[in-house]
């Protein structure tokens, strides 16, 4: 088992980079968090015996990504963070609160090929979501963090979080509707 940081870099660097890039989009930020992850790993190399180095490194990486997002959200003007009142949903609903474009029935991806195609479209639609929305959505729906945890980590209010998650889902759904 590799315990040399250079082996970690060579064996898992690409994986960690892609993982970070999917969440942060920015190649420089992705590089930074991979570096911080490996440096943190050097300082505390006693990973649990049962977890593989990759799992262990990915766990550290997730925290580094959250730190990076928190910094960015902290630098975001308060007015840009969404609250329930200013979550402008005009692109989705008309004045009476009815769907501007009615949700269509989707084919459910059944076999492996359809699954693969669905994931490809999902990937493209995730890339189109604003970075902060994608980040909070990933923490919720991939990492299964609860709202309280997310709000604490990102230093945002519960209402901010609900509305950001709502907007992320609305955007993602609309994009999938067009392209799936």
């Amino acid at each position, binding site marked *: 088992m590799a315990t040399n940081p*250079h082996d970690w870099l060579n064996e898992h660097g690409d994986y960690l980079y892609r993982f970070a890039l999917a969440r942060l989009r920015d190649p420089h930020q992705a590089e930074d968090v991979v570096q911080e992850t*490996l440096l943190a790993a050097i300082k505390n190399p006693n990973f649990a015996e049962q977890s593989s180095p990759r799992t262990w490194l990915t766990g550290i990486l997730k925290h580094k990504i959250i730190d990076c997002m928190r910094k960015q959200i902290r630098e975001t003007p308060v007015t840009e963070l969404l609250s329930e009142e200013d979550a402008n949903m005009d692109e*989705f*609903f008309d004045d009476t609160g*009815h769907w501007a474009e009615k*949700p269509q029935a989707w084919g459910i991806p059944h076999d492996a090929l359809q699954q693969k195609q669905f994931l490809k479209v999902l990937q493209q639609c995730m890339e189109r979501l604003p970075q902060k929305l994608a980040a909070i959505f990933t923490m919720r*729906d991939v990492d299964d963090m609860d709202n309280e945890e997310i709000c604490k980590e990102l230093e945002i209010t519960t209402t901010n979080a609900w509305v950001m998650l709502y907007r992320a*889902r609305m955007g993602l759904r609309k994009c*999938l509707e067009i392209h799936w």
Partner: protein
Amino acid sequence: MLNCKQTSLLVSQSLDRPLTWRERLAVRIHLLICVYCRRFTQQLKLIRRHMYAWQQQAAESQDIELPLAAKERIAQQLDKFY
């Protein structure tokens, strides 16, 4: 009576927090009569079921690699501490 906009917000929130019984009831009644919001609800759940696979695919796809220059920069940093 909820409209579609209010319903969609509550359906989204139902994935993030337990709704109150009043909210649950109101959503259920709306969904009984609105096929569009029923579809919306199913689609949000479908998306949620695929998010873990999305992450796996993004991390394992072979299309993207850590650029060589970045790898060298990181290697230099590692040398300072190891």
